[in-house]
């Protein structure tokens, strides 16, 4: 992976982490009322996977944090306005922070029901194939969501029609309070690929280079017309399911142990070892991230709320 790409992924990870920390503060201070599912701990795989997309590819993100939007290049102030339900965002207060949408970069939005994303991704893949393009669709989902029936139906349909869709599972070990080993009959969700005769690979989701390579392989396969792939990135959700989750279902020992696998310091150490990052650069990247976030929050706080009667708009084209 080239130097600039590594640093881009690193920068996006830092912006995402700092942004979620600030969002948590805003929510706890009652300054925004949004319903936010943080992705702290999963930024490496999210930023690395999206780094492999072309601007004309389609993206269906999952509900786990802000890194998808940061990595795709959606302006932070728009994300914050959606969170706050103000004007100036992407969905005019209709969908909150779980419905960030950005057609210019193929960000189709999000299904509120888990697993609703799979058929939508399948349809985007169908469009590409019918129109004869070489774009691809990347759809993120959690381990828990892989138990929806739509997962089976969509993987099978994509496989039989050879649709250019990459299914990327973020296995963070927990579906709210349900550990994967109690919810899911297979140890590796990637094993389910065998049921559809497509490639299924497991990667360390906290290693951005491994994720980038695996997603790159799958995107190549999709663009070539060979069909879908399933990638399982093993990771961990370091914070609760939502901001405010009492998180009583996991032992503190387990969570502390996982903090030692936090992908950010690990990637910093690797970049430093390769001579790509030093303390001064790291501080500068951090300062830039904080300044960018400050500006975005300031913008968000100046936006008005949508007129109440606009609740009646946007239903039909």
């Amino acid at each position, binding site marked *: 992976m080239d130097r600039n790409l590594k640093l881009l992924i690193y920068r996006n990870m830092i912006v995402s982490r700092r942004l979620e920390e600030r969002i948590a503060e805003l929510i706890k201070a009652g300054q925004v009322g949004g319903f936010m599912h943080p992705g702290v701990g999963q930024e490496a795989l999210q930023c690395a996977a999206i780094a492999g997309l072309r601007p004309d590819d389609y993206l269906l993100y999952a509900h786990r944090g802000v890194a998808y939007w940061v990595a795709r290049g959606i302006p932070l102030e728009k994300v914050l306005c959606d969170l706050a339900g103000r004007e100036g965002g992407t969905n005019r207060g209709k969908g909150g922070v779980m419905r960030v949408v950005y057609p210019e970069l193929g960000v189709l939005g999000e299904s509120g029901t888990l697993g609703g994303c799979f*058929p939508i991704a399948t349809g985007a893949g169908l469009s590409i194939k019918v129109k004869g393009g070489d774009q691809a669709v990347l759809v993120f989902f959690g381990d828990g969501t892989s138990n929806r029936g739509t997962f089976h*139906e969509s993987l099978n349909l994509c496989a039989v029609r050879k649709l250019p869709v990459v299914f990327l599972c973020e296995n963070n070990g927990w579906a709210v309070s349900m550990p994967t080993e109690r919810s899911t009959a297979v140890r590796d969700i990637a094993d389910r690929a065998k049921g559809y005769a497509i490639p299924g690979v497991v990667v360390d989701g906290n290693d951005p280079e491994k994720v980038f390579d695996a997603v790159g392989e799958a995107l190549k396969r999709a663009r070539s017309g060979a069909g879908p792939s399933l990638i399982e990135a093993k990771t961990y959700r370091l914070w609760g399911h939502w901001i405010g989750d009492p998180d009583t279902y996991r032992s503190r020992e387990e969570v502390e142990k996982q903090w030692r696998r936090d992908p950010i310091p690990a990637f910093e150490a690797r970049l430093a070892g390769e001579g790509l990052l030093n303390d001064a650069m790291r501080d500068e990247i951090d300062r830039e991230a904080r300044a960018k976030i400050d500006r975005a929050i300031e913008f968000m706080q100046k936006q008005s709320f949508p007129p109440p009667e606009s609740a009646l708009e946007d239903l039909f084209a």
Partner: protein
Amino acid sequence: MRTITYAQAIKEALVEEMRRDPTVILYGEDVANFGGIFRITSGLKEEFGDERVFDTPISENAFVGAGVGAALTGLRPVVELQFADFLFTTGDEIVLKAGMWRYAHGGAYKVPLVVRCPSGAAGVGPEHGQCPEAFFMHAPGLKIVSPSNAADAKGLLKSAIREDNPVLYFEHKLLYATKGEVPDDPDYLVPLGKAAIAREGDALTLVAISAMVPKALAVADRLAKEGHHIEVIDPRSLCPFDRPAIIESVKKTGKIVVAEESYRTLGVGAEIGAMLMEDALEYLDRPLRRVAIPDVPIPTAAILEQFVIPNEEKIYQACRELLA
């Protein structure tokens, strides 16, 4: 004008729109190689090829949701459900995705999707014989049409395919073989949201939906012989609903009967009743009468099915009661 069947009219609409617009695709269970279990789509795969006309696995959630995804990304999919009842199988994709995607994302995308839903009791029992329009009238963001004759079947389907919003297109199984005059103009369209006056009259307003329309017309003939000239209104679209058409008719007649193949509770007639209470109470000189399915599933045996499905006699009796 030439006379063709309702089934041929549907096929003509599909063929014409697919020739006209390369972004129109058609898929569903058994639609390509076999031509559909009701034989509507035979020959389409041969004309338009496997990319645009194809068979799907038995996966309604995936392929209806894929219709939404394809619509978001520039196609105009026409998805066939084998039976309208399967709308319940794919309820998430219909109600929460097709109906809400545009709204939930602040109008960023349009969803030009048509879902064809063969409806109606035809000896096929509880899970293959419903007319479930009313369930989906309750869902925001969906347009709903239920043509009662060949000309409307064609004109409404062409409009639905050109529409930028999701449309549930209910085609009644017992109407497939019925014949009617159908224009062959390739731009013959019937607008969504516009009712038709199937028979003019002033003695009573009889609102009839889908396969109830021919029955209502037979009742109108019978009543005419008895000296009562009733008006038969065919809403054609249930969403948007042509409220003014019904209110105008009731202003003239003062009496209304609604005949539908839905369950009685919260059926189309219930909504019409509420609408009249709000906007037209002063014009009614008799109470509303509904002829609908008593709130039971549709049984399979003919003798039982015919007991619950509204027929000419039941509609006639409801009208007679108000005309007395």
